[in-house]
């Protein structure tokens, strides 16, 4: 299953990449492959912007604007004037995950 095309913010800087392979391990959608000592993005539209690759890249080669891909969370954010938030833990009844 794939979501909307040409919309995700994932970026990989090949100059910084050392090919350690951590991104390929943590990605839940197999977006990366390691080839000739560097990571490559196979199909960027598979990315869900969870951010696992970026925070686990110790060479800062990956950037992505990560967050909850959740309509209720985005509505919460707009209504409360904050960043999108699922509010899974607060007192609110909203629970999207």
């Amino acid at each position: 299953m794939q979501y909307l095309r040409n919309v995700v913010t994932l970026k990989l800087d090949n100059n910084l990449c050392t090919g350690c392979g951590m991104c390929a391990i943590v990605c839940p959608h197999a977006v990366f492959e390691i080839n000739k000592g560097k990571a490559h993005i196979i199909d960027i539209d598979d990315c869900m912007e969870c951010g696992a690759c970026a925070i686990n890249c110790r060479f800062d080669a990956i950037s992505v604007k990560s967050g909850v891909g959740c309509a209720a969370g985005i509505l919460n954010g707009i209504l409360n004037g904050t960043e999108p938030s699922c509010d899974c833990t607060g007192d609110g009844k909203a629970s999207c995950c």
Partner: protein
Amino acid sequence: MANLLNVQSLRPISVSIPTVSSKLELSDLLGALKVRFGIGRNNYTITSGLYKVGKPDSQSDVLVSANYKLSFDVLRKNLDSLNVWILVIDTKGVNVWCAAGKGNFGTDNVVKSIKNTSLEHIVKHRNIILPQLSASGVAAYKVKEQTGFRAMFGPVQAKDIKAFIEAGHKATPAMRKVTFPMKERAKLISVDFMNAKYKLLLAMFAFFIFSGLDRTGFLFMKMFSTSLFPLINIFGGYVAGIVIATLFLPWIPFRAFALKGAFWGLILTVLLYSLIEVSYLEGISMGLINISIASFMTMNFTGSSTYTSLSGVQKEMKWAVPFQIGFIALGTILFIISKLV
């Protein structure tokens, strides 16, 4: 610290480190059902800290888990015949993936738990196994820097943990991928349905009242005799958006969830209009309303799905929300007009 244990099988057996069974009891299964239907969901936590499964020793693996009881139960259920430690970290009762996204299953929390439980005195090796889905909150290299423990990411699903351990801490590519089969989607329906129940009742109540409108004023008999069509449409819109669109998620070629829901709303409209005899105007008005409801409900399912991105949902909502509001407003106005003419 976290809430007290509320399940008998999880009460500490040894004095220092509690042992838990890899078998689930009836109370565990009933608890899971209650969570699915939103009864007392916010209290489904277990105490954070170190637990034993089987008879682990200083060489045994350490698995890290969230303190959401469903996550913990799924993990221990899959540890049959293994001797391992489970390090439960306080994620405020939230499952692994969501807690990682929000930072509760994060680097700092993992580091703190390793230190609080004096893990370095309990095991001789220096490895911990984290669930792969915690990777959006835990930077493995930082855990290593701060504790000396190498954080390995295990498989996505607990059912693969045995194979992962037996293969010498190696996951196959399939174990690394998140899937979203119909069975998993079906499990989420009840939560979404219960979350929306008040909106559903409110909408049905409003249209029950509107049905009694007449150019001569308000007629109770008319309210009872003509409210069936709008009530079926509204309830149908909920079912189409929450149940049908969700179950058949990949079957509809549109990528935007709002469109997937709208598609089923349209099918419902055609179906109901051909089955129940109403005026042209009322048929159109209820079609607009059930399409709007179905579209909104399915759009909300982006939060439960495992593959939607923040950027994508924002892009979709930019056009979908105005269209949903417009449809429901226009539909309501046309419905009232249909009653007055």
